[in-house]
């Protein structure tokens, strides 16, 4: 946290090395979150790109209240939501399992993920976006339920409910996959 504040301070003075270090520190985490949310590695890389370009462009005006990691993850989530809105990617309900056709099940996805990870992200992609967000932001992004509740504009209990229901659905989906 202290190191991040120092890096941001240096970055505000135009230090490229500080930007490089922030990027190195958080790129994989952000890419993991974006990929898990979008289930599309190309779109996830675009999100990573846009987060850092916009961060670099606006760091002069940045008033960091929480942690840098949360700031970057929230930026990524907002971009992901924009992508969903733009591309009209629909939330996928449990009843539609089996009809999913992701545009990222290509070789790139296979190269990045192990088989286990691929199954997991494919399962996550079948969850409603709100549940997926809660699970990924809590487990991959390390965010607290309270922070996620603020981001989603809802109560902590709703977020906890989404987490429980989401995990339960994911178990069902993955069990079904295992039996195939």
């Amino acid at each position, binding site marked *: 946290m202290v190191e991040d504040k120092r890096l941001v301070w240096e*970055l505000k003075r*135009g230090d*490229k090395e500080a*930007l*490089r270090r922030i*990027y190195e520190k958080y*790129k*994989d985490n952000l*890419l*993991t979150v974006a*990929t*898990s949310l979008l289930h599309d*590695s190309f779109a*996830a*890389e675009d999100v*990573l*790109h846009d987060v*850092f*370009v*916009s*961060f*670099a*462009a*606006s*760091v*002069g005006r940045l008033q960091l209240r929480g942690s840098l990691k949360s700031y970057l993850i929230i930026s990524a989530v907002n971009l992901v939501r924009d992508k969903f809105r733009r591309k009209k990617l629909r939330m996928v309900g449990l009843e539609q399992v089996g009809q999913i056709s992701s545009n990222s099940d290509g070789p790139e996805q296979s190269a*990045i*993920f192990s088989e*286990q*990870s691929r*199954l*997991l*992200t494919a*399962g*996550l992609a079948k969850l409603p976006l709100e549940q997926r967000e809660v*699970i*990924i932001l809590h*487990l*991959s992004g390390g965010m607290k339920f309270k922070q996620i509740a603020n981001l989603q504009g809802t109560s902590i209990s709703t977020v906890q409910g989404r987490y429980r229901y989401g*995990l339960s659905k*994911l*178990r069902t989906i*993955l*069990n079904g*996959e*295992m039996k195939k």
Partner: protein
Amino acid sequence: MNHTDHIERAIRELRVTTTAETDKRVLDDAFAALEEAAVAAVILIAFALFLKVLAAKPVSLSQIYGALEKVSNVSIVTFAAGKQEPVQMEWLSQTLKISVFQIGEQFVLLDIANKLQETASLPGGSVQTIPIPENVLATAKKKITGTFGLVPFSDINDMPRAARWSNVSDRKVAAIVPGSKVYDLIWTTPPLNVEFHKWRYFVDGRTKLPKRVEVYLKEGFESDYTLCTYEVVTYPTEAEIKTLVRNIFGPDEDRLGEPEYMGTPEPSRAGTPRKK
């Protein structure tokens, strides 16, 4: 692996790594954005400093004269001291050679080029046109040239030698027109010099144009200055004044296109009422 037992741990351990190509693309673009932002910030700071320097410099009376002489269109709303309703509203245009003023519900247009005076009573009243009386024409001509009556002496050289131009540093006074600089011009009327005049100027530090002018008077050394009137001054565009004239007196072609109103009207035509 049993997914259902270790699902949370598995998600926590998910790791997607970037390729070197992605790293290069992101960092190159982020560095470019950082440089652009730095350049923009430098320009912004330089501009802010420039404005600050401009604003910090005191404004002289001759600068106000100079600024007013460059202006073509002015709107002046005059208030009596302590009154909320304006006594008069006035629009002056050097380029259009017109003066429009409102007193109550009556609007008067002095068309100096055509030597015509049009009077309209609102709302929806008729427009009456008469030749401008010579004395009114002379006053109107004088008013739309130079400094629009916003300075007490049409030529700065006519100002009494003892006149003083001083900065008013009272913040409460400056707060009347936020962002303005306040100056007092004080002089006495010769030869007795017992009538004390004070015009207070609220000036835009950047344009040097007055935004408000307060007229004070005191009689005798012992008394205090009393606010008589104040004027709120804005600088409309020619198009805005044209629109105002069109809205009140009708379209140009209706007003000026009729042959009987072109040039100096004959006495028999004067006073002919015309519906808008």
